[in-house]
């Protein structure tokens, strides 16, 4: 693993009371995951799931309340000097809002040159290197784009610039937070194809943060599903999409529109009641139980154990054993608590 989250927790202060005691937003609770070289891991969840906060902690933009980010096996908090700089090159980020993530006062050339300067490209070589990057992300001829300001570009072109800026420092991992969600359908496909090509050419690993399961299915090898700050299910994409164990994963899949009217009409849809509860006061026991269509008494009281559902496929659900027919006893799965998380 190049980039790892180990038991990350992030709590934000949420107001103060008169006695000085703060309430805390539990944005992320005990999340562990890892991105390997040339691999794509998808982090899936709805708003309030904490997926963006996990991404920001992995990029070093937020400091975890507890837990550690590890880069090439070393704890981020222990990195200093040269190795800290290596982490900075090694992990880059692409954001959802292509316009907001480019400085409106800078030309494309300037934006890329700043990034290249960070990597130590000498001033005289930066213009050419910037042009090469533009070609690499499919903006040709580069001369046309170098002098432009972000507002003079289309959304798809801007997102390509964002990818180019991330590539400028030759990263090992790119954290892409909803990189195509704001783009039009045809442009979205262009960016996804670009990202896949870059991965093949540069062996770059992606942490692909998205709420769009259809996109995730086409890009990711492994999927982590989050709900209210916690991982509820993780595993190989095929397994999680094909045989979801957690009722939330199942509901998410069932709620995702199917672009096929015949299938759409045949499909049994699970409509979850209500909304995601506030992360200030997450429900006790399994946080999903108030919306869960199959919740039983124990779900309201006890935190669910991990259930092993196959090679690298784990879910946290009391009913997991019943939902995965080939698992015999719940004790077998309980032993996995430490092993899998």
């Amino acid at each position, binding site marked *: 693993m190049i980039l790892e989250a180990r038991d990350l927790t992030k709590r934000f202060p949420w107001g103060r009371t008169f006695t000085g005691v703060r309430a805390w937003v539990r944005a992320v609770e005990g999340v562990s995951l890892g991105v390997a070289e040339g691999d794509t891991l998808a982090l899936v969840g*709805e*708003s309030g799931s904490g997926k963006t906060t996990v991404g920001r902690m992995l990029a070093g933009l937020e400091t975890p309340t507890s837990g550690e980010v590890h880069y090439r096996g070393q704890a981020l908090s222990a990195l200093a000097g040269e190795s800290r700089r290596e982490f900075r090159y090694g992990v880059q980020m692409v954001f959802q809002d292509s316009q907001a993530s480019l400085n409106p006062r800078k030309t494309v050339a300037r934006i890329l040159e700043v990034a290249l300067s960070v990597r130590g490209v000498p001033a005289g070589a930066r213009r050419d290197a910037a042009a090469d990057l533009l070609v690499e992300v499919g903006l040709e001829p580069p001369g046309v784009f170098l002098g432009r300001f972000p507002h003079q570009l*289309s959304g*798809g072109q801007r997102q390509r610039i964002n990818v180019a800026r991330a590539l400028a420092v030759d990263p090992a991992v790119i954290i892409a937070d909803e990189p195509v969600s704001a783009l*039009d*359908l*045809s*442009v*979205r*496909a*262009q960016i*996804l*194809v670009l990202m*896949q090509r870059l991965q093949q050419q540069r062996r770059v690993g992606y942490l692909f943060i998205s*709420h769009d*399961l*259809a*996109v995730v*299915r*086409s890009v990711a090898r492994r999927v982590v599903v989050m709900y209210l700050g916690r991982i509820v299910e993780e595993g190989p*994409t*095929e397994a999680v*999409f094909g045989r979801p164990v957690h009722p939330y994963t199942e*509901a*998410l*899949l*069932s*709620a*995702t*529109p*199917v*672009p*096929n*009217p*015949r*299938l*759409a009409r045949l499909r049994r*849809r699970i*409509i*979850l*009641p*209500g*909304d*995601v509860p506030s992360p200030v006061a997450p429900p006790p026991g399994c946080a999903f139980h108030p*919306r869960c269509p199959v919740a039983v008494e124990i779900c309201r009281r006890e935190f669910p154990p991990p259930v092993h559902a196959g090679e690298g496929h784990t879910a946290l659900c009391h009913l997991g054993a019943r939902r995965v027919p080939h698992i015999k006893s719940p004790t077998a799965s309980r032993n996995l608590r430490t092993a899998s998380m």
Partner: protein
Amino acid sequence: MSASGPLLLIEDLHTHIPTPRGVVRAVDGVSLSLAPGASAGLVGESGSGKTMTGFSILRLFPTQAARIVRGRITLAGRELLSLTEEEMRRVRGGEVAMIFQDPTTYLDPVLPVGQQVAEAYAVRHGWEQARAKAVEALALVGLPDPGETYRRFPHELSGGMRQRAVIAMAIVCRPALLIADEPSTALDVTIQAQVLDVLGRLRREMGMALLLITHDLGVVAEICETVHVMYAGRIIESAPAEVLFASPGHPYTQGLLAATLGIDEARPITRVLEGAVPDLARLPRGCRFHPRCPAVMQRCRVEDPPAFRLGEDHIVECWLHASGAAP
């Protein structure tokens, strides 16, 4: 209104917006019809003119400069474009209602949501029954405990509940047609499913027709019977949903479908439409899609394609379907 006639009929609609760069032809000759109780999807990317088409029906424009320069819009046999502004105001929210992507904009933050729903009713029918009708509407859109929700303020509701409150406002007068512009785009998937479920139920229970404006072909597949695909101000393909998804006739529709990912199969993206929607003030000559078209022919560069009929309700504006042309 005859029982068999369409509820909504749009013929050759042109809506233009003069700008410093030139005239933006946002809607450039759109025709479509919608039967009572039917559901149609108006699909397109940004800049396709789908939202402007929706606004044109109600003559509600986000910019004052927008003008309907040509065309006819008939609602239940009534010519809408000849109505005065006052008469149009009675149509809006009465026979035709519209909901938008961002629900918060349409709710007054200082009034309880129920009162706002009731007011939408009272404007037309007086306050006498307004409260009862509002509670009924809140129940129809699936809000839990409608009597209680009536008294709550918009900020006390979640995004999904707010969107349903807005839908309640739209349907409280029992419109014959609901125009929904990206009603679920800003919502989470599970909340989107709730809203789509509500829209489907309203159609069944109220016999309401639905014109869904969206960029999401998945959503269209879920709830629309017919689909109209828009590109750069025109409907370039119309068909029953099953036909369109199974055998799209226009290269643009084919490209869109190829780019639409499903969750049932891990399909690598193979075909990608290059480029982007053209500037509506400077449309290319000939077919407006030809600069991006993978199957472009010489004719496409000079002549605008007419509508070709592929099936009973399957219409495509593309030279590929001219007799004698390749498939």
